[in-house]
């Protein structure tokens, strides 16, 4: 019992210290980034014939509410040399028909090689309208996962850089120029991947596939996720990128070196957390080949996505994330504390293992133990309340810190009341952590039992 109490306490302290250090590191990195990029004119690269070519691969499965507008957005990005590949992953609704009708598609004699294994490709379509010359639509048999759809795209696309996105996400017009920049700045280390900030779309005003007015979500759960995303992207990933320990480029949007992606065999369709797994595999490949490389991250908001608005969808999403995390960590366990993989092995992997996988389990067992003490009437209430106050104050401090980052950097929520509502949300958020910890436990159980589904979010459409 003594061990358990002290373990939980010191584990919590370790988490707190780690997050404070990450926050400090992130603030320094953000400051440099903002200063450096305040002089940058992204139009220069967007219009240049010297800029690398980009292939956007957007898997779509039952996206009839938003697909047409989102494809239009993709075709209207400000970049000179890019192509868009929409992969209709065996949709059972009208997704494919809508794209076909709206973009005047016809089947073409496209010859390709199944270099990367994927389900059967039924047909490849191009538009008869020259305005949609950039667009290629791949109609394939559904394999039950996004990885397979991206792999199909990898077999077709032909440009230097690969961008993977969710077809239901909305991309900022200058997203490609911003993502390309780290690749253009590479020095002695090859840039193999770049990620950017994903923002919450719920309640925002969207017109013709573009975000016209950024609003804080009206519902509580999405608002809670705004806080989570702000903390994760501005406090966490920025620091990990600088520390060369970044293990995840969000599946909602990321840019990769196509050559390296093909060399590692594309996405692994057997794992659920494909976005983390592929980054780990690419990093492992580069380290094992003794090649110098980096995975970078830019803090600019590049992509908007809808987040779950109800507990059921949130549970599906979080259990899936947990299963994906466990899959990836177990598959690449050789990285753990292995000097060969540099900071990834010595810092990044252990952090994710301890703080992302184990921490929710420790938290949940702490909650159960607290209930046990209350039930047997043995709770030392003054100390319990003090400890709770300590954790609570740290939690809201961290959230306020990330809100400050948002204010000092991209300042997307223009109304003062939005900021105040966000701060108020941070006051309630710690009480709901128990639910998120529970979802994580369920994810662990599902992983052990080999159950669980991909899950869907009820889209509002735009």
């Amino acid at each position, binding site marked *: *019992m*003594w061990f358990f*109490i002290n373990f939980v306490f010191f584990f919590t302290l370790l988490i707190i210290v780690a997050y404070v250090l990450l926050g400090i590191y992130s603030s320094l990195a953000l400051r440099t980034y903002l*200063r*450096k990029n*305040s*002089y940058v004119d992204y139009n*220069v*690269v967007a*219009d*240049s*014939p*010297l*800029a690398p070519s980009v292939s956007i691969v957007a898997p779509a499965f039952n996206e009839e509410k938003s697909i047409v507008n989102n494809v239009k957005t993709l075709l209207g990005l400000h970049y000179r040399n890019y192509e868009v590949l929409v992969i209709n992953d065996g949709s059972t609704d009208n997704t494919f028909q809508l794209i076909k009708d709206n973009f005047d598609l*016809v089947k*073409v*004699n*496209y*010859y*390709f*090689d199944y270099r990367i294994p994927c389900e059967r490709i039924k047909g490849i379509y*191009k*538009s*008869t309208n020259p305005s949609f010359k950039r667009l290629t639509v791949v109609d394939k048999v559904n394999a039950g996962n996004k990885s397979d759809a991206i792999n199909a795209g990898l077999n077709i696309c032909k440009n230097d850089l690969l961008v993977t996105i969710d077809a239901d996400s909305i991309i900022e017009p200058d997203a490609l120029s911003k993502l390309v*920049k780290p*690749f*253009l*700045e*590479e*020095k*002695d280390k090859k840039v193999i991947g770049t990620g950017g900030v994903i923002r919450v779309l719920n309640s925002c005003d969207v017109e013709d596939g573009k975000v016209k007015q950024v609003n804080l979500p009206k519902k509580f759960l999405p608002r809670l996720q705004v806080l989570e995303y702000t903390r994760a992207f501005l406090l966490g990933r920025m620091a990990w990128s600088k520390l060369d320990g970044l293990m995840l480029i969000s599946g909602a949007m990321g840019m990769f070196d196509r050559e390296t992606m093909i060399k590692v065999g594309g996405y692994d369709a057997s794992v659920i957390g494909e976005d983390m797994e592929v980054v780990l595999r690419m990093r492992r490949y580069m380290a094992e080949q003794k090649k110098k490389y980096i995975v970078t991250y830019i803090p600019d908001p590049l992509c908007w996505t809808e987040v779950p608005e109800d507990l059921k969808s949130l549970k599906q999403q979080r259990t899936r994330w947990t299963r994906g995390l466990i899959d990836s960590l177990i598959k690449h366990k050789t990285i753990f504390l292995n000097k060969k993989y540099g900071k990834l092995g010595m810092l990044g992997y252990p952090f994710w293992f301890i703080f992302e996988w184990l921490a929710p389990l420790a938290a949940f067992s702490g909650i159960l133990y607290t*209930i046990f*003490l*209350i*039930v*047997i*009437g*043995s*709770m*030392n209430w*003054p*100390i319990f309340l*003090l*400890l709770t*106050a*300590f954790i609570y*104050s*740290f939690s*809201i*401090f961290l959230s*306020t*810190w990330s*809100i*400050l980052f948002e*204010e*000092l950097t991209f*300042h997307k929520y223009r109304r*003062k009341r939005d*900021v105040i509502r966000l*701060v108020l949300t941070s006051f309630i958020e710690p009480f709901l952590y128990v639910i998120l910890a529970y979802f994580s436990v369920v994810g662990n159980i599902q992983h052990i039992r080999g159950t669980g589904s991909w899950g869907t979010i009820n889209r509002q459409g735009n």
Partner: protein
Amino acid sequence: MNRIKIVIVILGLLFASSFFFQTKYFHKIAERSDIEFIKYDSENTWLKVYEFAGLQMRLVDMLLVVTLSLVSTMLILLIFILIKRTNRDKREKLRNVLLEQYQDLILSYLSDSVIKKEGFKKIARNKFSRQILIEQIIDVSHNLPIDAKLKLNKLYFFLGLIKDTLSKVDSFKWHEKIQGFKELSALNIKIYNHKIKKCINSKNDILRIESHIALVKLSDDSEPFEFLTNLDYHFSLWEQITLHQLMVENEMNVPNFGRWVDSKNLDVVMFCLRMIREYKQVNNYDELDRALLHEDEKVRKTAIEVIGDLGLFSLFKVLKKRYKYETYDNSIEIIKTMGKRPVKSVMNFLQNVVDVEDDVNLQIEAVKSIKNMGEDGKIRLEKMMNSDYKNYNIIIKHVLDDRIN
């Protein structure tokens, strides 16, 4: 309703089990010595007195102090956020007002050539408003003819704004230095180039790049790229793109980039090859020939691309010879290059690639190149489609579909 019932049942069970445990087993649990957490006496870890930096404190006191510090820091951050936001809004409003006022003053100055010194000085009292005035002068001067630009420069010097710019150029903060460089180059002030030149080999990437850009903008037409000769550091593709765009926008006289093709700095070599292509400097035949044997495969690849884009057919023989010794990417580039201009003499070579190679990409590119040979290419492709030697139909249909390529 169901959820409410479930919550009530759980709370009821908790209450019942709590009552049961507390009446039956509390004395046994309380006797356990290792459960410090639940003991109230001075042996409890939390209540023990520890000495830290000369201070005697209990863990609970430390916890209390940290908690209060966190809460107060959070409150300070919150106040800071709100103040920052209010200030930002105010500055934005002030900025808009000042921009409007300066624009009127500048336009009236440009029309009657009389500097209403008082008018400017009245509103350019502090650093913030002087900065806005500088930005407005730069903004207005963008689309003006040269004589009007000179008038604006005169105004800039007359109002002493150069002091503000120079204080930035001389600042030890890199981002302020860059701001200063930007202002000097935007206003085409060349007399301080020596200050910018100090940074052309700076260890700070951004400062180095911005100094190059400023120098190219401010250089005399003869030597805008002189810095390439002594460039020791990395010359990123980002910087190359920026400089190229600068040349395009300003219609600058460009030097012969063949001059630096033998540079030891690979980035400089790549840049020059790209510029030879962009500015069609076909006179650099020998330099391109040498670049085909460069030890770096990326340099060779770019040289192959450039040869194709410039239509230097006489080097195609060399390319054919190089084909089997090149890397996969470079082999593909050679085949693409062959198809950039219709040259009959390479047709057999290309068909041989389709016949011999098993790689789909090589085959597709070879067929594309044959297709680009015009009428002769089409005839050759038709023959290939009817050939019994190999089934080329899928590849040729793919290539002939103009919607795909």
